[in-house]
Each structure stands twice: as structure tokens, then as C-alpha cells.
């Protein structure tokens, strides 16, 4: 519920025109003022003060010529015609990456990066496992005999021709042992 003091403060702030007052309170205030002569008087004093102020403002307002107004309006309208509006962020990104000027500018850097990647790939390429082919299967057989493993291999029925190479043969031997 609004009281008289609050309404007097509102008259001082919002002015005499009730339409400028907060919409939520308008009806309540109108009814209050209608029944209170002091508030009605305050409202009419505020009204006359505002009228006087408005006149003062109007008379002190700088007079700007209509020609200057037309000229400036033309200038503004022509400059807005030339001005480009900022694009939404996603359009700006697409435009940036499809703009030939931008792409050409970035081209050397992109090529240099690709070259660097190729060089890194070549230099640090993983070397395949080196199989030691220094020994023939005969030498390997001799080694097995020397080590006393050969008998076991023969007992298992593993023929020499099953050993395609050193590695396979050795793996089989280890497996069966």
C-alpha cells in the first residue's frame, strides 16, 4: 500500500505526468490523489514547474538548420550503405577460411608444416626387427648338437626341413622343449 510520502517522492521524481509513472501503481495512485487535496496541489505545482522547465529547455536548445540536417542525413545514409555489418561468428570463420587472400597468406606456413611432418615421419620411421642371418641352418644344427638339444628334437620327430629359417626353427625348438 502506497502512502502519501511515497507519492510525493514519486511526483518529485517521475513528474506530473501520471503516464510516466510505474504502470503497476498508476491506478492506485490516481485514486489516492483524487481523494487527497494536498497531493492534488503538489501535482499541479509539479506540473507548472515542469512546464516552465520545458520552456526553458526549448528556448536554450541550440538551433540547428534544416539544411545541415538534410546534409548529415545524406552522409549517414551513404555511409551506412557502404558499411559492412559484422557476420555471425560461424559465418565469419567460414569466410575467413575461404577467403583467397587469407588462404594465400597462410599457404607457405601450411606447406612448411606438411614438409616438416614428412621429414619427421622419414627420420623417426620404426625400423623392422633385424633377423640375424649370420648362421646357416647347418650351423644352427651344429649348435643344437653342441648344446645337447638335438637329440630331443629328433625324438620329437622334427625333421631338419621343417626349419625354414633360424627363427622359426628356434621358436619350434623352444616350444617343444
Amino acid at each position: 500500500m502506497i502512502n502519501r510520502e511515497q507519492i510525493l517522492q514519486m511526483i518529485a521524481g517521475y513528474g506530473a505526468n501520471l503516464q510516466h509513472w510505474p504502470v503497476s501503481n498508476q491506478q492506485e495512485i490516481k485514486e489516492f490523489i483524487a481523494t487527497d487535496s494536498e497531493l492534488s496541489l503538489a501535482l499541479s505545482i509539479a506540473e507548472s514547474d515542469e512546464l516552465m522547465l520545458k520552456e526553458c529547455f526549448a528556448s536554450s536548445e541550440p538551433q540547428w538548420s534544416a539544411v545541415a540536417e538534410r546534409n548529415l542525413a545524406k552522409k549517414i545514409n551513404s555511409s551506412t550503405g557502404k558499411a559492412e555489418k559484422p557476420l555471425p561468428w560461424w559465418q565469419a570463420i567460414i569466410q575467413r577460411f575461404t577467403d583467397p587472400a587469407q588462404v594465400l597468406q597462410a599457404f607457405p606456413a601450411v606447406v612448411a608444416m606438411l614438409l616438416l611432418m614428412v621429414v619427421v615421419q622419414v627420420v623417426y620411421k620404426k625400423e623392422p626387427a633385424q633377423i640375424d642371418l649370420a648362421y646357416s641352418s647347418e650351423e644352427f644344427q651344429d649348435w643344437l648338437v653342441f648344446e645337447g638339444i638335438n637329440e630331443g628334437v629328433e625324438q620329437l620327430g622334427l625333421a631338419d626341413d621343417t626349419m625354414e629359417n633360424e627363427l622359426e626353427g628356434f621358436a619350434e625348438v623352444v616350444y617343444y622343449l
Partner: protein
Amino acid sequence: MKKLNLLSDHQLIERAAKNEQAAFAELVQRYLASLVKFSTRYTLSFSCSEDIVQEAFLRAWRNASSCSASKGSVKSWLFKIVYNATIDFLRKNKREVSIGSSELDIPCEKQNPDKTLLQAQQQQWFDQALAELPERQRTALCLFMNNGLSVIDVSAVLDLNPEATSSLLARAKRSLKNKRQQDSQLGACL
């Protein structure tokens, strides 16, 4: 198609956001003079204010999509852009403005031969009284009384809440009234 001059400010700015230049031109026509006059009260130079307002309208054109009905009226949005641009201008060119571009620029356009001596004195008193008000009170009062902005719109321009704006206006009016009473006792005003 509806005539542009029948459209509301919000309808016009919506069209301007869609690159419709004619809609923006209508807004320019509606508010150009009041914005230039408002800015001139600070810069005291039409040529400076014309540049400021031109730049402000360009900014408004570029950012038309950011002006929505929920953020307040288009009028207050435009006044806010011009007010901020004017304050920036004054900060940057404080010295040049204070040197007296006012004397070069305004008086010749402001002079009105029909004015009586009394009216001229009254106007001089009012200008001085207004100049003595704190900057924000003066701006609030000018926007409210001279440019017809509502308290909500003034608060949008000054980045205040409506209650603070209302008390700012009340203080400004009270100061002017007190000064008028004091000076009338001395026989020096309205």
C-alpha cells in the same frame, strides 16, 4: 508493403538489422536533429556533434541486431550510443573543447533576433543554472524534459535503475527550483 513512417521504432530497427537501408534512413530522419542537439549541449559545437552522431548512427547500423524490445526503446538505445560517444569525445578532446569552440560555433546559430532582452537574460540564467548541476543530473533532466524520454528510458541511457533515476531527477529539479528562489530574491532570474 506498409509505409515506413507508419512503422514503430522496433519494427524499423528489426528491418535495419536485416540490411534494409530505407528503414534505417527513416530512423535517422526521426532522431537525427534531437540527437545532434543533445550532443551539442555537451560539445558546444555543431560540427563536432555532427561527427559524433554520424559515427553513432554507423555503430547503430552495424549493431542493429543487438537492439531488442526487451532492452528498452530504440530511442533510448540511440541516445545511449550518442551519450557515450559524446562523453568519449569530451574525454579525448577536453582541452580543445574548453578552449572555446563554443564561441565559434553555436552563438551565431543560436541567436534569435525576436528574443527580448528579458528572455535573453532568462535564458542566460537557465543555461548557467543548468551548467552548475552535476553532470548526471543535467543529463537526466535534459533527456527527461527536453527529449521526452521516460524515467525507464533515462535509466537505460545512464545505466541506472528507475528508482535511482527518479531520485536523480528529483534532486535536479529541486536544485533548479532552489536556485530560482534564491536568485529571484536577488532579482536576477526568471
